[in-house]
Every structure is written in structure tokens, then in C-alpha cells.
């Protein structure tokens, strides 16, 4: 294997092997990524950079490597979405209301990563409280997608809400990143930045220490340059956690080792409801191509139906805001985060602190959530949405009687221009039309880059699996990755001179 000449062009697996083989030290590797992060500030992918911590962690990793105590991710620099609480490092959730909140505790997922030797480069930008599909709701300003349309200088969104993580992976600012996915927040930005994003089964990764958006849907997952890298990261991130009652005690397999074996004999379901009116023909064409690739490698394509798919988005926009309205009640200006100045009583303290602290999209969702839970509306909205949710899960259960995985498009289109959809929330919400079903059913879903649009923008396909069958999902993803041979990289226009 020939290594790229620039360390920042390594995949995570390549870097791991090089570090272990002492071809490069973690310090050298980390220094290169710290420099890359600094030179890419125009992308606004990071809210907080932690170069000093990164170098210190790299040094410690090198010491462990010398002693032969290397963990699975020893010395590998990664980026963390700013929704994960990191002990001693400011955690904002992309919101002004958290102000300069510095958690005195470390989330389980990030602790797992540090335990395996990973190095923290910084905290990545994101939609405020993970509410958004374009990273434009961040209090810290939008992130730019490293990708631009051919012959265009127009700034594009990196998707959301894990837009900072997606952009930093796409721009080679880190070897991999964490994301969280409540309705598509890992898979949608991965798809529009030409990266790999996996939302694991609900309960696979602990939610402890991750700022909550919608508790029954939130799930952390890896964002990476390759399927293999995602498999490596997931193994480290996943764990059953006694501190999270909804985490599940299923053994964490060696996902990387399970990538081998191909898709021969695997039944791949093609759900007809994912063919939507008005989607660009390129999406449909890519989807068909994806099916053909898998068929060519020995998989069997099966037509399946998920009849309640069309109710998923409306149900999602009841359940997620309802839970959010309650989860975000704790941001009241009393104990931490932003507190409005010049207040006279407690009601004013709440009203002003929250009005100043939350952005428009978060306020909108809190209002929707409060409304759907109100006396007299609960049955019409929340109860019904939960019933829809049960039906959607049943759809998947039925479909999986006929197939092993499902193949769908990841997004209804490529990255769009900054500001193009901000005035129309519904068109923004439609970005998640292919991804929310998976969250409602709690299943694993993987976005894998599969091709470029005519304008040269990345598009992804989605592989959906059975609960806790991430191994098969990743294996299918790798088959697509291999067949697509997606080697395109964005031009490095963002680099500081």
C-alpha cells in the first residue's frame, strides 16, 4: 500500500497503520491536522479548536505507542460535534443559550474514544441544538461546504445538523468525526459532502453526556472518509452504558473485521415509496445504479413496500419538537449558560434569557412541541404520531422478512446554496424525507458517497439495516463504495494563503 504524501490525506485506517508501524508519530500527524484546521477557518467548521490539548494528547499517545499500549485509535486526531459534552472544553450545542458552558464531565461516547487513544482537534459547528438540515441555524454562523458546483464560487451548505463534522471530514481537517442523528443529521450532511455517515441502531451508542434534542430519536454515530473508517470509529464509540437506560446490552462486534465477505446472496430491498415526485432524475438514476452495483456483486434485488413512509415526516415533526420542548426547558438562565441582564423577577429571567439565548428555529420547534403536548391536543398530535411511529416500525419489520437490507437515496438532492431554503422551513424539513423513517424505527442507516451530479456535487445512497445489524449495513456500504469508486475530492479553495 502506498501512503498519500500528505498525512492529512490519509484515511483513518491508513493513519492508524502508519502510526502503529512507526512510519509517522502521532505528534507529526496531529501537527499536520492542527495546521489544516487553522488554514481552513474560512469553512467555519469548528466552534472551538483545541490545538494545545491535541498536541498534549498526541504526545501521550506517542508515549503509549512506545510502551506498546496502543489503543484502537491511538494517536488519531478526530473532531467532535459540539453536542458532546467534553470535560474542560466549552460545549455550545451551536447555541447562544449555553454561552460559555464548560462541562465538568465527559460524554460516554467521547470518553470511549479517548480511552481508545483518539486525539481531540476541536468541537465542530452544528445547527443549534441539532435542529436544522443546513447548519444555518448555528449561533456561530453557517459552515461552508468544501464542495462547490463546477464553475461556481457560490457558497453551499454542508447539510446539517452535523455540518461542521461533515465539512471537516470532507476537507481532510480530521481523520474522522462524531455526529448525532435525530432525523438525518449524520446521513444527510455526509451525503452532500461526499463522506460516509452512519446512524447506528437506537441504543447502540450511549446518549449520556450528549446535549439532548429528541431523546427517543437521538443517536450518535461516526462520520468518516471511508466505510472502513466508519466501522473502526463505531467499534470505539459503541457501548452499553449503565448511565443511559435506553442503551442496549448487545455485544459490540469487530465491525472492521466483518467488512469482508461481500454481498453475494444478500437480499437488498428496494422500497417503492422512496421514489418521490419532483426529485431530480439524477437521484433516481443513482439509486438504480446502486442496485445494479450490488446485483453485479451477487446480491438479489427485492421490491418491497413501506406503506406508511409518507406519514414519517409529519410524525417526526410532532415527536421531535415535543421532546425538544421538554428537553430544552432546563436552559432557563438559572444555573448555567446565558442569563439576560437587568431582569427583575423570575418570569422575566426566563423569558428574556430564553428569547435571547435561542435562535428562531429552536424557538419555532419549542412552540410546536409545547403546542402538540398541550391539554386537548395531546391525543390528536402526540398520541397519533406515536401510533404512526409504531406503524412505520411495522413496515420495516415486514419488509425485513423479505430482505436483509434496504437501499434508498440518502437525500432528495445535492448541497444547496446558503440561504436558499432558510425562509421556507417546510422545504428545509423535506431534506430529511429519506432519513427520518430510520430514526422513528430506531434502525441503523448508512450514507455512502455514490456519485456526482452533473454540476460535480456529491450524492449519496442510504443502506438501512435490521436493528443491531450495523455489520451487514457496513458491508453493503463498502460494496457500494468499491463499485462507485468515489475518488473525487473538492478543490482546496478554502486554504488560507
Amino acid at each position, binding site marked *: 500500500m502506498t501512503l498519500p504524501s500528505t498525512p492529512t490525506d490519509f484515511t483513518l485506517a491508513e493513519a492508524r497503520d502508519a502510526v502503529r508501524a512507526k512510519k509517522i508519530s502521532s505528534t507529526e500527524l496531529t501537527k499536520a491536522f492542527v495546521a489544516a484546521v487553522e488554514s481552513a477557518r474560512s469553512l467555519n467548521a469548528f466552534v472551538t479548536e483545541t490545538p494545545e490539548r491535541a498536541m498534549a494528547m498526541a504526545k501521550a499517545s506517542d508515549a503509549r505507542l512506545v510502551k506498546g499500549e496502543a489503543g484502537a485509535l491511538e494517536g488519531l486526531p478526530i473532531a467532535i460535534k459540539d453536542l458532546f459534552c467534553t470535560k474542560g472544553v466549552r460545549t455550545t450545542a451551536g447555541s447562544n443559550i449555553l454561552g460559555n458552558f464548560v462541562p465538568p464531565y465527559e460524554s460516554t461516547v467521547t470518553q470511549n474514544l479517548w480511552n481508545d487513544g483518539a486525539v481531540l482537534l476541536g468541537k465542530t459547528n452544528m445547527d443549534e441544538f441539532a435542529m436544522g438540515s443546513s447548519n444555518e441555524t448555528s449561533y456561530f454562523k453557517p459552515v461552508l461546504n468544501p464542495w462547490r458546483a463546477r464553475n461556481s464560487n457560490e457558497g453551499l451548505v454542508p447539510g446539517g445538523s452535523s455540518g461542521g463534522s461533515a465539512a471537516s471530514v470532507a476537507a481532510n481537517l480530521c481523520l474522522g468525526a462524531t455526529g448525532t442523528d435525530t432525523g438525518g443529521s449524520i446521513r444527510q450532511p455526509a451525503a452532500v459532502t461526499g463522506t460516509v455517515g452512519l446512524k447506528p441502531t437506537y441504543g447502540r451508542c450511549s446518549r449520556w453526556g450528549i446535549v439532548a434534542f429528541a431523546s427517543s430519536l437521538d443517536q450518535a454515530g461516526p462520520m468518516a472518509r471511508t466505510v472502513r473508517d466508519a466501522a473502526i470509529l463505531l467499534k470505539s464509540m459503541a457501548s452499553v452504558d449503565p448511565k*443511559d437506560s*435506553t442503551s442496549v446490552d448487545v455485544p459490540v462486534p469487530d465491525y472492521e473485521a466483518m467488512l469482508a465477505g461481500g454481498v453475494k446472496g444478500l437480499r437488498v430491498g428496494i422500497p417503492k415509496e422512496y421514489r418521490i415526485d419532483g426529485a431530480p432524475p439524477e437521484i433516481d438514476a443513482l439509486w438504480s445504479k446502486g442496485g445494479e452495483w450490488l446485483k453485479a456483486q451477487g446480491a438479489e434485488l427485492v421490491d418491497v413496500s413501506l406503506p406508511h413512509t409518507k406519514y414519517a415526516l409529519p410524525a417526526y415533526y410532532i415527536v421531535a419538537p415535543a421532546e425538544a420542548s421538554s428537553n430544552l426547558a432546563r436552559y432557563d438562565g438559572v*444555573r448555567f449558560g446565558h442569563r439576560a441582564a437587568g431582569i427583575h423577577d423570575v418570569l422575566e429571567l426566563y423569558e428574556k434569557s430564553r428569547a435571547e439565548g435561542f435562535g428562531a428555529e429552536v424557538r419555532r420547534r419549542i412552540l410546536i412541541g409545547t403546542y402538540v403536548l398541550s391539554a386537548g391536543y395531546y391525543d390528536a398530535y402526540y398520541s397519533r404520531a406515536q401510533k404512526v411511529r409504531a406503524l412505520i416500525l411495522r413496515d420495516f419489520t415486514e419488509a425485513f422478512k423479505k430482505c436483509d437490507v434496504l437501499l434508498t437515496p440518502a437525500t432528495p438532492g445535492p448541497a444547496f446554496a446558503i440561504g436558499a431554503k432558510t425562509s421556507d422551513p417546510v422545504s428545509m424539513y423535506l431534506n430529511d424525507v429519506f432519513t427520518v423513517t430510520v430514526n422513528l424505527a430506531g434502525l441503523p442507516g448508512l450514507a455512502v458517497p455514490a456519485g456526482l451530479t452533473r454540476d460535480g456535487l456529491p450524492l449519496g445512497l442510504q443502506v438501512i439495516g435490521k436493528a443491531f445489524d450495523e455489520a451487514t449495513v457496513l458491508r453493503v456500504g463498502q460494496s457500494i463504495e468499491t463499485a462507485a469508486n468515489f475518488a473525487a475530492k473538492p478543490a482546496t479553495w478554502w486554504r488560507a494563503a
Partner: protein
Amino acid sequence: MSAAPESPKERSKLINGQTGPWEIVIGLEVHAQVLSKAKLFSGASTAFGAEPNSQVSFVDAGMPGMLPVINRYCVEQAVRTGLGLKAQINLTSVFDRKNYFYPDLPSGYQISQYKNPVVGEGEVFIDLPDGETVRVGIERLHLEQDAGKSLHDQHPDYSYVDLNRSGVALMEIVTKPDMRSSEEAAAFLRKLRAIVRYLGTCDGNMDEGSMRADVNVSVRKPGAPLGTRCEVKNVNSMRFVAQAVEFEARRQVDILESGGSIKQETRLYDNRAGETRSMRSKEEAHDYRYFPDPDLLPLVLEDAWVKEIAKSLPELPDEKKARFMKAGLSAYDAAVLVSERETADYFEAMVRDGADAKQAANWLNNEYFGRLNKAGLTVSTGPVSATANSAIVQVVAANVISGKIAKDLLDIVWTEGGDPRAIVESRGLRQVTDTGAIEKAVDEIIAANPDKVAEVKAKPKLAGWFVGQVMKVTGGKANPQVVNAILKERLGITEEG
């Protein structure tokens, strides 16, 4: 006056208004703090009286990303209480979020059980002083977390918040509207307190707030449908419960009799003024937007575990009382002895040491408890052991000392301690049963008091004077039966006066 009530008992529970008698209808909601070292959803301590905010985990403070984990022991305590209330144990129950803003409620919601409580219907029997037993139905018992405490008197401009109580496990026990007088309400609370103390599930300490009651009061004409109720909040002593009921019932009768109507509202009991005051009307009631807490799975109990708890239940007051009555105690004596587990245990220890049950009960109720009450002590803190009291009862029963000397003996043991039997010997308290000595004393007194002898012959009731004289000269040690017999013979009294 209207038609006479059916029985004097019924009659006594009515209150009189200008338009005739009214019936009070009372239901209680009791908050009982679960006896547990740790909180309901965190490992923080529950000890009373600690420095403010010294017993607060990140979960209790509602920090971002923190998740509740149910404390198994608190659930066990709730189940144990449910079994003690002869109630239905629900093998599946659900924790819900009750959403409202208050500075001492850090998450902006209280985790409680709304639609599916862990314990369903049960019953409690209360004994009234007139010997009547009343059944009070239990509607439900659910687990919930306590809020913190707002301190408004620490600073002229600011309120302070102490979160030590935040997250402490409470059992909310709701009765059916089965009580008809303030005495019944107080008797119910006393009985409930006894039951939870027997079970070891709550210390029942109303001063420290480990038991608090909200009282629902309505009035109606006997036989009429239920009237509109008012909820009187936070009544924190037995005495205040009785006072609050009396005040509130009278207030409602006055309104109704002057042509008004009762508004359903929440009222606060002011124990200094001895009155209830309006807190908020039904229209102002919070919309709590209950929904199942997505951070917690439904609480599923194994039937075998519940049965195990049932097997470990101690003998409860009702069963104990029945057993004591079988041993010959009156209903009243038995009820007094079982009202506190430690009292019943003390009594049983006396019997185990050889005292007759009935004599032991009489001794405690007539002699020992009075002294304890006067000294502000209990059987556990009092100076005389069950063994010592048992010995006193036994030496009386064996005619070794008289009942009168027994009181002196108790005084000695109370102040000086020691073995009662040894004291009887060392201080020469043994009663004189030597007929010769008593005969001699009797003869001397008769000889010295011829006028009294004549009086007694006319009025045999006056023989008591001679008994007193004999006792005086024998230092109280003469056996009263022997004295009586000899006196009767010598004075020629044939029958009891």
C-alpha cells in the same frame, strides 16, 4: 330541623349550618419520602439537614446531557408500600414528565407517573376512638421525584435555590374520597404513618417534611352527590390537617348557605392564621404537558420479585392488633400498642420475658406510657427496659409486691435503674402476707378506734379507712387481699359495700 340522622354515629360526623346538617367529604394526597440512601434517579445522598447544594449530582441539577437511571431500591420500597396497603401492584408502569418552569425544578420537568402508576387500588382501615372501624380506599400510589427548595429570605433582592431535595424519591399516595370528618382524616394519616414506618419505607417524619399532605375537601347535604372540591396544599402536621379540614368545610358551608357556589381551586393552608387561602383557580392551573419520559424505559417488574417482597413483609398493625386481641387485650389497648412498631415490639418483649399479656398491656397503658409522655420520651428512649417492666408486672402478678408498691418500684428503676427483683429484696418491698402480723396490726387499729368500728358496721363502705390504716403501719407492704379478708372477718362485714 330536617329528618333525624340514621344513627348517632353518622350524626356526629355532620356539621351544622343554618340550613341543616352538612356532610364533609375528604380525600388525601400524601407525599411520603421513600426511605432510601440515594435519590430516585441519581446516586446523590438523601440525608436531611446537609449544607445547601451539597447533595446534588449533575442529574439532579439538570445539567445538559444528563440522564436519569431508576434506583431499584426506591422501586422496591414503593412495591413494599403498595403491598402494605393491600394494593394492586402494576407489573408495568410508566414514568412521565410533568413540565413546568420553576427555579427549584432544574430540568423544567418533574419525573412522575401519570397514567400508569406502579401501584393501583388498595385499602386502609382506620380505628376511631368510639371503636368504629372505617375503610379508606387507596386510589393509587406512584413514584416521583421531589423538587428543590427556593429560599426567599436569604437576600433582599435575590432568591436562593437549594437542590439537596431535588430528585429525592417520593411516593404520592392518593385516597378515595372516603373520609367524613377531620378526625377520620387525622386517623388515616396516623394509620398510614404507622404502616409505612412498620414497612420501613418512610420515616413518617412530618417535621422534616418526609410526609406531607394535600387535602381535598368538599361538602354536601347528606345523601346528595359530591360537591365541588378544593385542594388544600402542603399541610404538614396531623393537627393542621384537622384544622384545615374544619376551616375549609366551614368556609364552604358558609358560601353555599349564603347562596354562593364553590369554585374548584387550589388553596394554601396558613397554620399561623389557621385558615386556607386561594392559591390558584382551575383556570390558572398549569398545563403540565405530561408525556412518557423518553429517557426511561417502561418500568417492568417481575412477578417473582414482587412475591419475594411480599414474603419479606413484616406483620402490619392490623394483623398485630388482631393477634393481640386474641391474646386477651381490649381493642383499645391493642390499638394503642400497635400504633408504633417499637411500642408493639416492646410489649411483646415484656410478654416474651414472662409477663401476662393483659397485665403487661394494662401496666404500659396505665403506668409507663404516661410517664414517658410526660418526659417526652418513647419506649426506645425511655429509661426502663422491657425486661425490667416485665419483671415488675410479674412480681405484682405473683403477689410479691402490691400494685401500689409497683409504682414506687417503677420510680426507683426509672431514676436509678437496676433489676426490679433485686430492688424488691434489697429495699424490703416484699408485701406482707404473714397473716399473724397483719392480724396484729388490724387488732391494734380496731382497738384504738372504737368510733370508726361503729361507723363501719353501719356503713361497710367505710372499711377502706381501715385498709388505709393497715397499709400505713405496714409501710404499704401488706397484701391488700389478706388485709381485706381479715378486716371483713374482724369487723363482721359479710358482703362488699
